[in-house]
C-alpha cells in the first residue's frame, strides 16, 4: 500500500494521464497498423518528389523568401508581449486602476510599434506593394 501513498489521489489526475497516454497510443497504433497492413509496390518513377509531372529541376532545398523570417520575428515579439497581457488579464481586479494604466502604456507602445511596422511596409506581403509604396514616397518628395 505504501507504494501508492506518494501517487496523486485526485481522480482527475488519473483521467488526464490516461487521456494523454491514450492520445499518443492511438496515434502510434494507427501508424503501426497501417504499416503492417499496407501493401508494397514499386515502380520506375515513383521515388521522385511530386512536381506536377515535371522532372525535378534542382534537388537541393529551396531558398526561402526572407518574408517568412520577418513574420517569425514579429510573432516572437508580439506573442511574448501578449504573454504579459495574459498575466494582466487574469489578475485584472487585483492590479486595479494602477495596473490598468500600466497596461494601457504597455499596449500603447505595442500599438505604436505596430503602426511603425505598417508605415515602413514591413507587413506588406508582396514586393509589388513595397515597390508602389516607394514610388509614391519618391513622388511626394
Amino acid at each position, binding site marked *: 500500500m505504501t507504494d501508492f501513498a506518494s501517487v496523486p489521489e485526485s481522480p*482527475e489526475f488519473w*483521467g*488526464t494521464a490516461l487521456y494523454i497516454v491514450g492520445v499518443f497510443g492511438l496515434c502510434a497504433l494507427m501508424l503501426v497498423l*497501417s*504499416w503492417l497492413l*499496407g501493401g508494397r*509496390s514499386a515502380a520506375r518513377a515513383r521515388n521522385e518528389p511530386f512536381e506536377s509531372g515535371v522532372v525535378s529541376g534542382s534537388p537541393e532545398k529551396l531558398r526561402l523568401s526572407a518574408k517568412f523570417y520577418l513574420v517569425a520575428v*514579429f510573432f516572437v515579439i508580439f506573442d511574448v508581449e501578449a504573454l504579459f497581457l495574459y498575466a494582466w488579464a487574469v489578475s485584472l481586479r487585483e492590479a486595479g486602476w494602477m495596473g490598468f494604466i500600466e497596461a494601457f502604456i504597455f*499596449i500603447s507602445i505595442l500599438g505604436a510599434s505596430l503602426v511603425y511596422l505598417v508605415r515602413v511596409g514591413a507587413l506588406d506581403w508582396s514586393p509589388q506593394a513595397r515597390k508602389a509604396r516607394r514610388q509614391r514616397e519618391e513622388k511626394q518628395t
Partner: protein
Amino acid sequence: MSAFVDWLSSPVVLAAIWAMVKAVIILLGLVLSAAWMIWLERRLLALWQDRYGPNRIGPFGLGQVIADMIKIFFKEDWTPPFVDKATFILAPLIAMSMMMLGFLFVPITPTWGVSSADLGMLFFFAIGGLAVYAVMLGGWASNSKYSLLGGLRSTAQTISYEVFMGLSLMGVVMQAGTFNLREIVEYQQQNVWFIVPQFIGFCVWSLAAVAVTHRTPFDLPEAESELAAGYHTEYSGMKFGMFFVGEYVGIVMVSGLTVALFFGGWEGPFWTEKIPFVWFAIKCLFFMSSFILLRAALPRPRYDHMMSAAWKVCLPLSLINLLVTGAIVLWNHGA
C-alpha cells in the same frame, strides 16, 4: 488477494478508475465524432450543392466512414526515399495528437470533462503553438517544393493568427477572472453568455480559430489550385489520413471551446440539469456545421490580404477590446 480486492474497492481507487473510464469514453467520442464529421461535411456540402453525397453504405451513407477507414488502413504506408524519415513520420503524429490533447480541458457537462485544471486555457494556447510544428515539419521533411511552400505559408499564417487568438480570449478571462474553462462556463451561467459582452472578442476568435484549423477560407497552405496539396503533397495512406482526421478533431475541439467560452457550455433554455450533454452537443454541432457552411459559401482570399487582415485589423481590434473590457470590468468592480 483479498487485500488487493480491498484496495481496488476503496473509494479513492474507484474514483480514479471511474475518471479513467470517463477519459477513455471522451477520447473515443472525440475521435468518432471527428470521423463522422467527414461524413457530415460531405453530406452537407452535397445538400448545399444539389447533390446526394455519399449515400450508398449503410443508412444515409453513415457506413462510408468505416469503409474509408478500412480502405485507408490497407493502403501502402509509403515513406518516400527522398524524405527525412523521422520528421516525416513525426509530423502527422503531432498533427493528430495535439488537436486531441486540446480537448483535455473542455468541460462537457457538470460532471464530465477530462480535467478542469486552472491552466486550461493556457494549455490550449500551448497546444495551438505546438500544432504548428506538424505542418512545418511535414512541409520541410517532404523535400518537395510544393510541400515546403505549403508548410511555410501555413506556418506564417498560423503564427500570425495565434498572436491575437490568445488576446481575443483575454476579454473572457478578465470578466471571469480565471483561466479555468469550467469556472468560465459556470460564470456565464450566473451572468450572461460571453457572446453578448465579448462580441468583438468572439468575432476575432472565430477568425483565428478557422485559421488555426486550416479550414476554408483560410486553407491557403493547401490551396490545390496553386500548391497541389500543400504540406501533405508527399503523404499518402494513413499518414495522410492522420493529417485529415487531425483537422476534423481540431474542428470538434475548437467548436467545444467556442461553446465553453462564449455560449455557456452545457446551459440550455430548459432542462439544463436533466440533459446538459444534449445542449452541449447541439451547440457543438451547430459550430461544426458552421465550419462546413463557411467552406461551402466563401472563396479563398489572397494570401497577402489574409496576412494583412491578421496584423492590421485583428491584432489592433483585439488589443482595443482588451483595454475596453478591462476598463469596464474595473469600473463595475470598483463601484
